[in-house]
């Protein structure tokens, strides 16, 4: 439970800050801060990607110094399809989300997994 509140706090903080900024600055600067917010929500946050990489490393029993970029494919790291499903389940447990089967089929790289997680966490009704 403690870890759940920590993750939800870390996701909420940036958006609260940006809304405060957009309310306090003048109309001329409003556009740029709005586009900045859009940029943050499109790409997955680096900390999410890092957490996903940690889970993948642990699941596939990779050594700690294996270079894991966001674009690494699971199959390239030696995961078969059952491993991929297991990784998705581990992510479900860690981030407290529920991944549908259709979404799970499309996950092949770490970046896609992180994007999907961000998507689902934002869609989840705020507890």
């Amino acid at each position: 439970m403690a870890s759940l509140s920590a993750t939800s706090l870390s996701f909420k903080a940036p958006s609260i800050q940006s809304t405060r900024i957009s309310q306090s600055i003048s109309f001329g600067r409003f556009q740029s801060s709005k586009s900045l917010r859009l940029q943050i929500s499109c790409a997955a946050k680096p900390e999410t990607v890092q957490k996903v990489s940690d889970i993948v490393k642990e699941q596939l029993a990779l050594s700690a110094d294996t270079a894991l970029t966001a674009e690494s494919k699971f199959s390239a790291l030696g995961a078969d399809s059952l491993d991929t499903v297991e990784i998705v389940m581990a992510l479900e447990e860690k981030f407290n989300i529920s991944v549908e089967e259709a979404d799970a089929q499309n996950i092949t790289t770490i970046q896609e997994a992180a994007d999907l997680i961000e998507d689902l966490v934002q869609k989840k009704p705020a507890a």
Partner: protein
Amino acid sequence: MAAPFTLRKIGVPPNSANLTEARRRVFDFFRAACRSLPTVMDIYNLQDVVAPSQLRFAISAQIRNNAHVTDPKALPLISVSLVIDLLLFKGMEELTDIVDHAKQRHHIIGQYVVGEGLVQNTGSKDQGKSDFLKNFYTSNYV
């Protein structure tokens, strides 16, 4: 918290038409098992004994144990997807028993937590047997 997962008791579903559908069923079963893990840990008080990731690994190891069931030539009279269906049925039965608290804590710990579980389940079938035994059913003179 994500919505609590309940194991729906479907009757025996019709046989899978091909390997792809059997594959999909295997993954669905694995997902159902993983989603029931919080309930299981709660029922049998396994919080201090094992982590959910270890149980997930145990489940996937059991599935992998039967991963060799893909060669149609090895099973001339039965289709491969039927065999997979049967294995899934047994797996589903086991999962339902566990979730219904029809088992006891020492069963779970002995079968899924400690080492490789019951002795007769160690190792997948047909691996490590000699060539003589492997060809025993095919012919005497290979």
